[in-house]
């Protein structure tokens, strides 16, 4: 009897095991996974019947999150102190940026305005009042009409109004990105795109699918990049200060005549071929960054900033390469209009060039860069950019457009290395720029701390070095540390 019972139990056990094994293949054992699903999503009756019979589950086809307008802003505040001997650097700079976007079917209206306050300037001597403590700026205000088609011509855009242009695929140094003037009163304190000033333009773009796009821009109104001229301001070029010490006064920037024939024209063709994004560009117009010439150097001694009409032929490209590396490059060839300084100290050249302190040369400016996410370790980022420029028909003694030292061919390295950690709440960053030809540099270490969903603070420094007749070395006594607050709303 006992044997029978044992045999029965054994057989039952084997049968059960066999059945369970078979059921396992068709979903017999149910694993329960606990998840914290919001109640409004968790209203099904518990079986696997997923089909909704009433179509009434929440959040379906209810366009409650659409807005025809969007208002947003960004506040940036800096407090800074010098780290060099005379501590001449001490400033507060605040910037409030407001953006409004309105969508009306095929028309988009966009406005971006800035209000800035800074204590950098003591600029009573600045004839252009470039350095006032409080200033308002309408960076962009345009209407964009867009029409799309289900034909070979897939898209047409027409933009009219105050616009900012971002040309080029490189990063901080973008040789073809010269269409928009910049606010350089704070040098490179802000990112390149934040420094840009708007200008009135009519822009049209037509696209033929994703492979080909053309862009044409007409800019009848000119606007110059702005920089400081007085000695008290932090980033005034040393060459300008020296000239003023030698008795020169600085005129207001000489702008082109207000005539249609002085309009600027820009054309660009974007294409994608074999996985490479590239574009060809052409610009015939005034370089917004003023050059300076000497007027009556023996008599009235005037320094005259002016805009020069340039002809630019550009090329840029970007493509994924290997091992997670993306390569991008950009080149701008100035066939006309690029000017260089000629110092009176080099009197032979100075007198040969007409004694106005400038000379025109053909010029090539190019950069090749790469970046890599998860560089060596996760969440590390590396961006390297090699920059080279070449002055054709170079003559010994030429100065750069900024009045600083230059060679026939100049090489520089720009880098950004960062690492995010602590759940991406912290980022340590080391970026900089070293010029191999002039041996001047700018180092920018920074530590980012995320304070909340929309807020972060950055603790960092700008450290300049090199000879005082070089672009970055001229600020070597003005290195500073800073605390920056950034808040989005």
């Amino acid at each position, binding site marked *: 009897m006992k044997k029978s019972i044992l045999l029965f139990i054994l057989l039952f056990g084997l049968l059960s095991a066999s059945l369970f094994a078979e059921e*396992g*293949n*068709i*979903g*017999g*054992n*149910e*694993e*329960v*996974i606990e*998840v914290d*699903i*919001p109640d409004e*999503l*968790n*209203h*099904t009756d518990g079986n*696997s019947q*997923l089909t*909704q019979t009433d179509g009434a*589950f929440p*959040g*379906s086809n*209810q366009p409650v*999150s*659409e*807005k*025809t307008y*969007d208002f947003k802003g960004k506040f940036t505040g800096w407090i800074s102190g010098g780290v060099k001997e005379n501590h001449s650097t001490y400033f507060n700079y605040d910037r409030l940026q407001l953006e409004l*976007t309105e*969508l009306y079917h095929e028309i*988009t209206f*966009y406005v971006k305005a800035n209000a800035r306050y800074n204590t950098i300037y003591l600029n009573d001597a600045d004839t252009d009042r470039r350095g006032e403590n409080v200033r308002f700026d309408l960076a962009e205000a345009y209407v964009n009409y867009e029409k799309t088609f289900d034909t070979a011509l*897939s*898209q047409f855009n027409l933009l009219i109004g105050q616009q900012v242009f*971002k040309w080029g*695929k490189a*990063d901080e140094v973008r040789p073809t990105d010269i269409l928009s003037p910049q606010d350089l009163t704070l040098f490179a304190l802000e990112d390149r*795109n934040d420094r840009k000033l708007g200008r009135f333009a009519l822009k049209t773009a037509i*696209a033929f699918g*994703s492979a080909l*796009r053309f862009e044409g821009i007409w800019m009848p109104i000119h606007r110059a990049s702005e920089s400081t001229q007085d000695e008290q301001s932090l980033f005034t070029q040393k060459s300008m200060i020296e000239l003023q010490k030698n008795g020169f006064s600085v005129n207001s920037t000489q702008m082109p005549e207000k005539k249609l024939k002085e309009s600027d024209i820009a054309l660009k063709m974007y294409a994608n071929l074999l*996985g490479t*994004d590239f574009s060809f560009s052409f610009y015939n117009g005034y370089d917004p960054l003023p050059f300076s010439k000497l007027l009556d150097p023996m008599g009235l001694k005037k320094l005259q900033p002016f805009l020069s009409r340039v002809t630019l032929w550009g090329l840029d490209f*970007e*493509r*994924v390469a*290997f*091992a*997670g590396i993306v390569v991008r490059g950009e080149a701008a060839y100035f066939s006309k209009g690029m000017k260089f300084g000629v110092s009176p100290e080099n009197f032979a050249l100075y007198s040969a060039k007409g004694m106005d302190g400038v000379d025109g040369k053909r010029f090539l400016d190019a950069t090749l860069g790469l*970046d890599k*996410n998860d560089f060596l370790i*996760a969440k590390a980022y590396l961006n390297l950019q090699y920059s080279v420029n070449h002055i054709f028909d170079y003559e010994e003694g030429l100065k750069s457009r900024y009045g600083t030292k230059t060679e026939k061919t100049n090489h520089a390295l720009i880098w950004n290395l960062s690492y995010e950690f602590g*759940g*991406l709440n912290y980022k340590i960053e080391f970026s900089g720029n070293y010029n191999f030809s002039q041996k001047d540099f700018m180092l920018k270490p920074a530590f980012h701390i*995320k304070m909340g*969903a*929309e807020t*972060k603070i950055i603790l960092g420094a700008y450290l300049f070095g090199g000879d005082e007749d070089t672009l970055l070395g001229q600020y070597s006594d003005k290195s500073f540390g800073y605390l920056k607050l950034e808040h*989005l709303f």
Partner: protein
Amino acid sequence: MKKTILFSLLAVFMGSLVFTGSKTFADELSGYDIALKVKNANKSTKRIVWSKLTVKEKGKVVEQRTLVLKTFRKDNKDKALFRFTSGLKRDVTMLSIEQEEGKDNIQYVYTPGVGRPRQIDSSEKQNNFEDTDFTNEDLGARKIEDYTYKRLGDETLKIGKQSFTCFVVVSENKNPNAKYPKYKTWIDQQSLVPVKIESYGKDGTMKKTGVSAAVKEVKPGIFMSYYVYAKDLETGHESIMTVTNVVMDPSDLSENLFEPANMSKPWKEK
């Protein structure tokens, strides 16, 4: 047969066809067949999805932000746009364009500070998208031919209040250097929505896990998950995406939007 695949938790947003074969037929399916069916399932021509993303650090909510996803399907190829609409990553937009067999899908990221879209290399497919626990691959970079597939025994899962009878498929990356060389995926047989996934590292241990739940039929024959959860087991970092709204076949969603040049365009969807 050799089409690309969005064999991931998020890819359920992009489906269209529904597999409703008999159990007998289902039993005959190989791992590859199932992967292919998932790739082709739950597709819609056009879709917009609003989501709320919650990021947790050591169990504590560190950030919440909103995300809008737009998809467009043409000639059996998907295009997808993801945009953060709040937080410090506001307006960061990702574009994924599916390519034909043998070619990696193309992905771009647009960051307002940079001011233009940047390409992402295919070898970064298994990197996380921004600071989420979702990889670029999850967001559309995965290709069906990147993996080999092996079907295991079916299993039943109960996630939240829903029970799912699942195919279980192990997919192994053909690239031995992949960050996550192996995935184990549970796919609901009725909806073909992947409802659980485990990601394994090179050392064979599980590195990430995720579930999708609250699976609903948003249009006859088209299912999607309203709740997606992913956790990095090494860091404890968690991402939870909750769908707040879905609009199917919006009339004003144009294919032109899915171009790199249009990634910076303002959207009315917030």
